[in-house]
């Protein structure tokens, strides 16, 4: 009886078996399989099942059993036929590679360490890039979420803001049928959340009821409707733990901002660091509205911009078309030329494409991501060139090997294979070393980029990445040696006719390329470094030293005068003031009119509302006129402006002139020096400072110079505790906040240094290997030259010549290109350096000096040995 089943699948299975299985084992295995199959059909264990079911089950099992025979224990039992010699040869190639590595430990070390460093830097960069791209993936619906942003036209430029107006929230919903839902939120603010005697200050986001479902916030407790009750609050996991420990927080009452009782209705997963949105707790915006009457008041106010609006789109909606339809939604309510145009930006682009110029996305962090991806690629490329150079430089030794291999029957393709195996072998070793290095560097790198990067060894993506890198590196570094060696003519090579670099042009080109890249890296990194230093050392216009700032609550607002006195008499405080914002941030703006204003366009000024002692506390210089003073009763209508404002208004004698703001007319009493608020990369905005009684809920304190700031802070804290025992707000050093807000500056600066160093290091390694090799190869020549009367100096000159010429050519190519590229890069910053004249000569000298030193040390060895020693061996 044959197998009863003749279905194509079973036939195919047997054919597969015949193909993988050694012939001497085939018969019994087939027999066993058929026997099993037949017994499966007849089995009585599932008598309830129909015959049909059994047949199908038997077939399934047969197929599975056949597939399982595809295992090494069976496959490797095949008598090796021609196809399998490949396997043996690969083993042989690996053995040869190992021997090559062993024989030239010095070069192998240079080679492997160079590659390992290149690989380490590219893995680190890729981890960072991956992290940057993973931003905002916390919300499960991130792909279909968009933020509605607005383009305003001020002073002739288009500014983009995420502040929106309340009526747009409803209007957007009905504007286009591809918009599924809209959601309204506040921006995140610090609030206090207390439970019994436990107090905490947390970042809270007020949201409309669509929020939870729309974003798909991962919930631990509660439902998407947990915020429907206006007096509810949802906490993140950490806050819930902090306040309630292991108890169930649901339905517990917490005190919000010392006044309102809110019921905890849910717990959500902590928002991870890589998130544009960041909050510890969510409250319904309706409650927010009741406490902040303006939100209710503004339901049909089109010209009051502050909440954020998010939109959920149907999948597959063409965002361009939707943008075209919603563009005029807000604009039609405006006739003042500010021309606000709505548009949507995808959640996946919030983080990396956060810069807008003229109402269009204009990069942002993505520029750095791209820049450093390129640089990491270049570093890896330099490392690969190192490999190629060192591999081909040893050609004399390998040429004979190739010749013999060819004469005993190696085909060209097999030789190519051999050299690729070698390059992959070394690449893999370097990768192992690289991954170990990455593990070691990660903690340091994490503090550098201020992120929690880690290698996820279990992730498919990671291994995919590693494999891709191995293949790219292996191919890139193995390609040239493989084709170079395999093209040797055996007869010539074996006669000893080696043609050192039968193709020296290519190698020269490679070394030149390496030089070009490193010149580029060095010049680029010096310029970036300079730019960063320039921005970091920018005159900020105020003094950050010992300056402390924080937001305070109503309790302190009531007692401001008392607190100020108390603080000043505490002995650790030099000056105190209050204002609508800290000096280092620029949130409030206003349109300003003045006599003799030329253009019709609205001009936007920064608006600082403050009290006495603002300039004194912040350390701002008064250029003209005077500060506010209690001696002048009229100072409630007085205003200070900065220098930029004076320039923009074109006033010759600003003191005494009047400006008109949105709510009053103010008289200029003084001009202040410019203060950098906001990004230090940007120009200073015009600004006016008045005693305006806006919501002056930020306290700025200048601590006296002391060695023990912590003690001073304790004293300050004690004062607050006395007058407001509930207060939990932590005072923040302005300098810390500044560093935190502009951490990219620091980070980019340090990365630039790092890569400049890596570029130099790898190039040096390359020159070192090549110089050492050249010196060794020409030992005899040098000895003979010496006998004939050449001095050590002559010999040094001879060998240096080769490298110096290459370096000079590289400089000639790289310097102008990098100059141009960097100039256009610097255009991205409005506060920027002009490239110093010395950068290029400095780089050139540096490169030449390095080359000279490295080559000379290597040549010295060969040049100073006694010629007898080098010549007698044969």
């Amino acid at each position, binding site marked *: 009886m044959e*197998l009863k089943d003749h279905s194509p699948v079973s036939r195919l299975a047997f054919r597969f078996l015949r193909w993988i299985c050694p012939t001497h084992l085939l*018969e*019994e295995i*087939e*027999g*066993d399989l058929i*026997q*099993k199959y037949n017994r499966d059909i007849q089995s009585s264990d599932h008598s309830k099942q129909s015959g049909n079911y059994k047949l199908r089950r038997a077939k399934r099992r047969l197929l599975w059993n056949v597939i*399982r025979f595809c295992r090494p*224990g069976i496959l490797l039992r095949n008598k090796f036929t021609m196809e399998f010699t490949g396997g043996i040869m690969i083993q042989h190639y690996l053995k040869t590679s190992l021997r090559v590595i062993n024989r030239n430990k010095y070069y192998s070390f240079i080679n492997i360490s160079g590659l390992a460093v290149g690989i380490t830097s590219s893995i680190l960069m890729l981890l960072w890039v991956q992290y940057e791209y993973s931003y905002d993936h916390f919300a499960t619906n991130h792909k279909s979420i968009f933020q509605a942003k607005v383009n305003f036209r001020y002073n002739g430029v288009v500014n983009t803001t995420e502040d929106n107006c309340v009526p747009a929230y409803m209007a957007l919903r009905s504007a286009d049928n591809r918009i599924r839902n809209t959601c309204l939120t506040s921006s995140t603010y610090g609030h206090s959340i207390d439970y019994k005697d436990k107090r905490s200050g947390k970042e809270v986001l007020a949201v409309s009821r669509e929020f939870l479902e729309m974003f798909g916030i991962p919930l631990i407790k509660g439902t998407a409707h947990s915020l429907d009750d206006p007096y509810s609050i949802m906490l993140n996991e950490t806050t819930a733990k902090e306040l309630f420990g292991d108890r169930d927080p649901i339905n517990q009452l917490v005190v919000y901002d010392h006044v309102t009782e809110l019921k905890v209705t849910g717990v959500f997963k902590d928002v991870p660091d890589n998130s544009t949105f960041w909050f510890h707790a969510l409250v319904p915006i309706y409650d927010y509205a009741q406490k902040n009457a303006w939100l209710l008041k503004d339901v049909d106010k089109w010209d009051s911009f502050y909440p954020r609006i998010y939109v959920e789109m149907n999948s597959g909606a063409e965002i361009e078309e939707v943008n075209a339809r919603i563009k005029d939604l807000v604009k039609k309510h405006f006739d003042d030329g500010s021309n606000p145009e709505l548009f949507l930006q995808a959640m996946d682009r919030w983080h990396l494409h956060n810069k807008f110029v003229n109402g269009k996305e204009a990069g942002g962090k993505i520029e750095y991501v791209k820049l450093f991806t390129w640089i990491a690629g270049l570093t890896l490329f330099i490392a690969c060139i190192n490999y190629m150079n060192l591999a081909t430089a040893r050609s004399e030794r390998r040429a004979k090997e190739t010749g013999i291999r060819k004469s005993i029957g190696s085909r060209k393709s097999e030789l190519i294979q051999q050299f690729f195996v070698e390059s992959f072998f070394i690449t893999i070793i370097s990768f192992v070393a690289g991954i170990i290095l990455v593990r070691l560097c990660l903690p340091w790198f994490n503090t550098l980029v201020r992120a929690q990067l880690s290698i996820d060894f279990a992730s498919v993506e990671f291994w995919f990445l590693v494999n891709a890198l191995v293949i790219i590196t292996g191919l890139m570094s193995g390609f040239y040696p493989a084709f170079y060696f395999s093209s040797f003519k055996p007869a010539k090579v074996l006669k000893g006719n080696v043609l050192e670099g039968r193709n020296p042009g290519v190698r020269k080109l490679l070394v030149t390329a390496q030089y070009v890249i490193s010149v580029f890296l060095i010049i680029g990194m010096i310029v970036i470094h300079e730019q960063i230093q320039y921005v970091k050392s920018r005159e900020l216009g105020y003094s950050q030293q010992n300056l402390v700032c924080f937001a305070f609550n109503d309790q302190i607002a009531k007692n401001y005068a008392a607190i100020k006195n108390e603080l000043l008499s505490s002995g650790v405080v030099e000056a105190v003031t209050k204002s609508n914002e800290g000096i280092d941030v620029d949130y409030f703006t206003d349109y300003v009119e003045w006599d003799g204003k030329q253009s019709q366009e609205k001009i936007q000024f920064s608006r600082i509302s403050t009290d006495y002692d603002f300039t004194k506390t912040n350390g701002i210089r008064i250029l003209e006129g005077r500060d506010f003073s209690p001696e002048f009763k009229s100072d409630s209508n007085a205003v200070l402006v900065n220098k930029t404002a004076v320039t923009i208004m074109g006033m010759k004698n600003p003191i005494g002139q009047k400006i008109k703001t949105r709510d009053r007319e103010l008289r200029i009493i003084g001009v202040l020096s410019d203060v950098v608020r906001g990004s230090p990369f940007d120009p200073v905005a015009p600004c006016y400072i008045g005693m305006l009684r806006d919501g002056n809920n930020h306290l700025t304190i200048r601590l006296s110079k002391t060695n023990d700031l912590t003690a001073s802070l304790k004293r300050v804290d004690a004062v607050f505790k006395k007058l407001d025992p509930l207060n939990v707000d932590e005072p923040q050093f302005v300098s810390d906040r500044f560093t935190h807000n502009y951490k990219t500056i620091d980070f980019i600066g340090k990365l630039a240094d790092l890569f400049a160093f890596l570029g130099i290091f790898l190039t040096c390694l390359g020159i070192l290997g090549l110089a050492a090799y050249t010196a060794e190869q020409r030992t005899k020549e040098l000895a003979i030259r010496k006998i004939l009367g050449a001095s050590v100096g002559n010999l040094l000159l001879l060998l240096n010549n080769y490298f110096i010429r290459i370096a000079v050519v590289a400089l000639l190519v790289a310097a102008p290109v990098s100059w141009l590229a960097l100039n256009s890069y610097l255009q991205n910053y409005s506060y920027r350096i002009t490239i110093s004249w010395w950068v290029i000569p400095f780089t050139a000298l540096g490169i030449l000096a390095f080359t000279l030193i490295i080559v000379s040390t290597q040549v010295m060895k060969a040049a100073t040995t006694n010629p007898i020693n080098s010549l007698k061996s044969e």
Partner: protein
Amino acid sequence: MAKEYLGEFEELILTLVAGLQEEAYGAAISEEIETRLKRDVNLSAVHVTLYRLEDKGLIKSALGGGTNERGGRRKRIYSITSAGIATLRAIKEVRIDLWKMVPQLKMS
């Protein structure tokens, strides 16, 4: 004990080859394991282990007769060699020795 250590599965198969005698071939052994040990085992695993044991010289094989049920294919019948018996015995003795070290529970 032999220098070659045996894995748990190898030991199991070796014992079965010794026990099944004339009926010791791939499919029968796997069936035996399934019915007696209630343990799912893949046919290929059994085969590979048999080959490995043969390589180690613990069992030997010869082709036997074919049946209709097997589509006429012959069986490869395995039998244990004296080295195999020695190994099995050594394993058993070591086990018993070790078992004696375990404090025995007294059934009151």
